[in-house]
């Protein structure tokens, strides 16, 4: 078998290759180099010093932020995937072709508006004297604190990820062979059990990748933890801006950014490996 790519396919993939080199690989290499530079009198100087890595990794504030961000993003991925699944299942399995198309259209609409604008408008809902608390007050409940805490952050993450996760789940569920569902029923597997034993395993790859997207988007998000979570205690993305603002410490920000990239690469690799794992030898 000839595995060498043809000139034809090379020509077409060249723009993408150049793009990737120019805007991903080169900046990444630069970021690595930058992390060894030093700052003196608010001036960056090319250097090869591990001081930034040592300083950042020896601070408990960094590790607190790291694990908080990891936990929030994991929670976000899990909760959003769980919340999305019943909706995706209903759209894929219970709706007719026409209604299905409408629902997919409706799920695309949130992307018409900037995410930042949507998060700002959520403040109106979530603040102490906001719409939700006013409504709950009528029912004799609350007020609950929903802004400037993890609840606010997670609500923002859901705004960011939920429509996308539902769409990805719907597309993967649409590919589940309906014969498998009938065959399971035929072998005495009831409705709910079929969802757990057959539909979820069949759509596993798509479901895991939908969750992975929620994780990646939440892990790197800056808007929700700042405007809905209050920014304190910080997540890693907030920490990066804090570090750059205080004393031009770009090299130390680079250390945080590289740690984030390494984490995302590890999680993505593990998730995809899990998603495509096959049964048997």
């Amino acid at each position, binding site marked *: 078998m000839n595995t060498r790519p043809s000139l034809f396919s090379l020509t077409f993939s060249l723009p993408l290759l150049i793009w990737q080199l120019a805007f991903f690989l080169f900046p990444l290499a630069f970021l690595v180099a930058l992390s060894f530079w030093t700052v003196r009198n608010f001036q960056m100087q090319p250097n090869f010093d591990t001081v930034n890595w040592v300083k950042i990794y020896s601070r408990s504030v960094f590790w607190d932020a790291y694990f908080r961000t990891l936990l929030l993003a994991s929670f976000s991925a899990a909760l959003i995937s769980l919340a999305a699944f019943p909706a995706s299942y209903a759209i894929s399995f219970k709706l007719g072709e026409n209604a299905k198309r409408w629902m997919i259209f409706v799920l695309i609409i949130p992307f018409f508006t900037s995410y930042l604008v949507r998060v700002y408008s959520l403040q109106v809902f979530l603040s102490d004297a906001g719409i939700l608390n006013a409504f709950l007050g009528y029912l004799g409940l609350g007020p609950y604190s929903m802004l400037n805490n993890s609840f606010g952050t997670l609500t923002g993450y859901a705004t960011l990820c939920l429509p996308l996760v539902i769409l990805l789940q719907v597309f993967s569920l649409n590919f589940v062979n309906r014969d498998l569902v009938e*065959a399971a029923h035929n*072998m*005495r597997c009831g409705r709910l059990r079929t969802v757990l034993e057959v539909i979820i395993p069949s759509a596993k790859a798509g479901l895991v990748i939908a969750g992975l997207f929620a994780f990646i988007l939440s892990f790197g998000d800056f808007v929700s933890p700042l405007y809905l979570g209050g920014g304190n205690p910080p997540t890693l993305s907030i920490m990066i801006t804090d570090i750059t603002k205080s004393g031009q410490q770009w090299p130390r920000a680079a250390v945080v950014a590289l740690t984030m990239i390494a984490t995302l690469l590890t999680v993505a690799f593990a998730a995809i490996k899990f998603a495509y794992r096959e049964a*048997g030898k």
Partner: protein
Amino acid sequence: MLDTPIVHFDNVVKKFGSFTAVEKADFQIARGEFLAIMGSSGCGKTTTLRMLAGLEDPTEGNILLDGEKINGKPTWERDTPMVWQSLALFPFLTVQENVEFSLKMRKVPKGQRRERARKWLDRLGILEFADRNISQLSGGQRQRVALARSLVTEPKILLLDEPLSALDAHLKVRMQSVLSGLQKDLGITFVYVTHSMSEAFSMADRVVIMSRGKIEQIGTPEEIYREPRNRFVADFLGSSNVFDGSLKSSGNEVWQIETEHSSFTLKAPSEVQKTDGSPVAFAVSSENMSLAAIGTPWAGNSIEATVVGGEFAGASATVFLETDQGQELKVQKGHDELKTVDIRAGQKLLVHWLPEHCHVLPGE
């Protein structure tokens, strides 16, 4: 209990909106029988099977399984395992886990589950693949997994929806003998849906022929082949020539039929009653027709026809002819018998056959 048929379709109708998929299906399936339901696509054969499996609900009529009415009972409360055309094996489970699946649903303990699954894998000759993934198996091996998965619960009846259609011809024949062997050994009822006449006629005890939602004929392969009930069945089998005419005189021994070609004589059928002048259709098997040069003296039925073409593959040859009135005829003969006549296209020949080889179609 043993005298009741295992399945009884009691005037079953299935409609999808205004489309009638199955019209008044009324038949029984005996215990231990291999029944094939045959027809072209869209004839309602798969819908009939799916109603029995509980995957569709009949619009009218009743379905009785073992004497018990099962309409409205969901498929997961029935013991009617089915083998899908796509096989519907679970790709996320191993071969062994696939076979264990229905035992797991029946809460059979793990050790027992494993033992029973392995027994069936062994019986079907695929034990060595127990821990493999489905995607690593060949078509024939997957077929065996699907069978093992359905038979592991030792059901009284097995439903099969064109399970061999994806296999190549050689493997198909081998799986046919596996299937009929299994059915005989187990003594359980097989209901087998197919569009292939060779599959149906080689395996089944009885065949149901359906077209456009209606059952055209039920009988043993031999009965259907020898005595097609109507024009549809005769045409469907593809080996008969059908003539239309009216009954001129009906004696005890012979009938005279007047057709647009000429008058034909046939042996009076014992089971059909008709009055003189009423329309009659009869079929003559293409094997029972012979060819001769024009002018050859012949005492039985004969007709002149022009050769259109022929197929000379296999043990016998098929000659296609057309009468002056435009009716197509098919004559199937051994190569030796055809040596004596000139069968070039355009050649006029005498087609002849005996009165006892005419079969009156009672359903016409």
